[in-house]
């Protein structure tokens, strides 16, 4: 067993691009779920808004790459209104149902043959990120840093941009939650009726929170698309939202640090489990006493099984995660 490379991969995953885009999406989910108590199960759709906002600049509109930010914002606001208007006056679980359904429909629409002209169908969109690549100050073929934190020029560039966005986003959320606006949304989470009786328009605050979280999700989707250099509709499936939620709960809901450390821990653990199991099954299925326990094609399933188990155990045994405050997780839908 090659422990050295497993540990190296795990350490690299802690600061890798996956942790960074998860952190941005988790920050957004934290604004919605952690601070305001909104169950947004469609964060993947907000991420898709960002990715397709960028991608469609080149693929369909034929305009400058930077228009992607404008398109992304428009898509996020439209999506936020579609899911928010019918549900934000109702009990918490309606939003969950509608967001999960909308996210699925968004994925079906962008991968459909009918709208291939706009969104590229199941092939997705490639060749949209030249403007971003041209800004890369590092040599594309060169490697930088010391092991295990050794990255190619382009990866280093996206990593720097991604973590800079995470830092800015964190600062923004931290400041926002100390502002009067932040105190109102936290009060909405605790007792909506009390806030309403103080004359605040709860509905508007919830909608603002949903869209602010969605914009953070949009940046996450953009980073993901830029790193991969392509946009695949199936990368924005419903389970992505759930993995981000798991990472957030792991870090600690309603804490800015929670939405950064949670995704780092999530990917560290995930890559460790993945590498360990792959190493174990590399030279054929693992057998104990003639019974096949696991073979290499099943490693993916086991990883995600552990994610699900982790979410169950966290919610039951330590709902506040690493950094959170248990009192802030005492949510109730009724």
């Amino acid at each position, binding site marked *: 067993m090659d422990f050295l490379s497993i540990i190296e991969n795990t350490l690299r995953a802690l600061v890798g691009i996956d942790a960074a885009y998860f952190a941005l999406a988790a920050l957004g989910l934290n604004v919605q779920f952690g601070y305001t108590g909104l*169950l947004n199960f469609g964060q993947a759709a907000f991420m898709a808004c960002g990715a397709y906002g960028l991608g469609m600049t080149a693929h369909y509109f034929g305009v400058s790459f930077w228009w992607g930010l404008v398109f992304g914002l428009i898509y996020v606001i439209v999506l936020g209104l579609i899911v928010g208007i019918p549900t934000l006056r*109702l009990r918490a*679980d309606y939003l969950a*149902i509608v967001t999960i359904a909308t996210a699925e429909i968004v994925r079906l*629409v962008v991968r459909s043959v009918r709208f291939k002209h706009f969104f590229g169908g*199941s092939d997705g969109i490639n060749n949209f990120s030249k403007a971003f690549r041209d800004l890369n100050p590092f040599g594309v073929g060169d490697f930088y840093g010391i092991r295990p934190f050794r990255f190619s020029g382009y990866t280093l560039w996206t990593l720097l941009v991604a973590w800079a966005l995470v830092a800015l986003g964190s600062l923004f959320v931290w400041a926002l939650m100390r502002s009067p606006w932040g105190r109102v949304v936290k009060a909405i989470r605790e007792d909506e009726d009390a806030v309403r009786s103080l004359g605040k328009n709860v509905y508007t605050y919830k909608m603002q929170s949903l869209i602010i979280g969605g914009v953070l999700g949009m940046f996450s989707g953009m980073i993901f698309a830029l790193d991969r250099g392509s946009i695949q509709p199936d990368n924005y499936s419903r389970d992505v939202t759930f993995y981000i939620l798991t990472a957030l709960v792991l870090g600690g809901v309603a804490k800015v640090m929670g939405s950064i450390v949670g995704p780092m821990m999530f990917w560290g653990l995930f890559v460790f489990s993945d590498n360990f199991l792959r190493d174990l099954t590399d030279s054929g299925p693992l057998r104990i006493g003639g019974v096949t326990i696991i073979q290499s094609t099943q490693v993916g399933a086991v990883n995600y099984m552990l994610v*699900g188990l982790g979410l*169950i155990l966290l919610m039951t045994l330590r709902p506040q995660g690493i950094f959170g405050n248990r009192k802030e997780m005492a*949510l*109730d839908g009724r």
Partner: protein
Amino acid sequence: MKLHPGRLFATAAAALAILGFAPSGIVHADAENEIVVRVQDQTSTGATTSKLPVAGAVIIVTTTDGAEVTRATTSAEGLASLRVAAGADYVVTLDLASLPDGSTMIREGTERIELPASSFRTPVKALNFFTGQSADAARSDFERIAQRFIDGVRLGLIIAMCSVGLSLIFGTTGLTNFAHGELVSFGGLVAFLFNVTMGLPFFVAFPLAVIVGGAMGWLFNWAIFARLTKRGIGLVSQLVVSVGLSIMLRNIYLFQFGGRTRPLRSFSLQEGLVLGPVRITPRDLTTSALSLVILVAVAVFLQRSRTGKAVRAVSDNVALASSTGIDTGRIIRLVWFVGGALAATGGIFRGLDEQVGFQMGSSLLFLMFAGITLGGLGSAYGALVGGFVVGILVEMSTLVVPSELKNAPALIILIIVLIVRPQGILGRRQRVG
């Protein structure tokens, strides 16, 4: 309140052990061949012939005596890839019913290609199917609408059956169970285990799988949700737990069963009966009739029997029901068992209709939610009516929207209902916000 993390762990471990080491349904073939199928639509205008890929065509591989081996649906590029064990003779058939309306094979009889073992010179065999327009295949509008309606009724019955439990669980406990789709898949997969892996006759496997499915629902409550409620954990947290449960179970299914879909052994290939304007297989006719009988039985049980009335009372108001001497704990356990059993039945019927796979239930979850929201969250009759309407709507919508987007109208219904009448058709009028 005393915490019992140890007991919770033990329970989860026991559940995992049962699920994880149940006899595996995966057949590990030593050598596999791949059949790559390309389906193209040919149109001739003058001297030029253009070929367009056909998406959504169903390709079925059978053995020479007609037993189905595997099937696949062509991608947007008109391609499908099927893996089969090496060294056997196969027949590859293009399901004409899956082609767009008015489309058929360009030459009659070419939908069926025989593939003897000797034809695999390399592990990959490429096959081409060519489709085109035919005059006789063009069915009248009335026939197409009637056919879609019947397909919709079939889907609606399955959705209604699956969602009764979801709605009653919500009504009695307040939990929105995101793992309900996994109860549906569980039914289909357990039926596969009994029927195919263990080789039991279908009429033994079916009731067994329904009972095991009910037990699984009961286990959800006993092992997880009843304990969480007892510990005073909020409903939103319980909802997130059900999400975790859904991810975990789906991946356990994937681990045990593999990513492919497989047919239940019995009744997998049948000739359609032509009844007036519509075509339906005897299998689908039987399952639909059975679904109807089961749903009516559930409704009569809820309406007439003492226990059924108690279920409705608890669903209406837990505290009030409890104060009249109803044992709410018993009712909740019953609801989980019945809900699990009905979901399993729906899963088995769906498995007969389509195929069995690890995602079969979770892909229905959103339609179930649309159904129970339309009918009224927490109401059993609402789930019946709403599920039925959503099923018909989804199938009928393919007359207008492309079939790859047929779930989208369900979302539109969901949103309109929430704006216009959030309590649903049969829901109680109350403040829901």
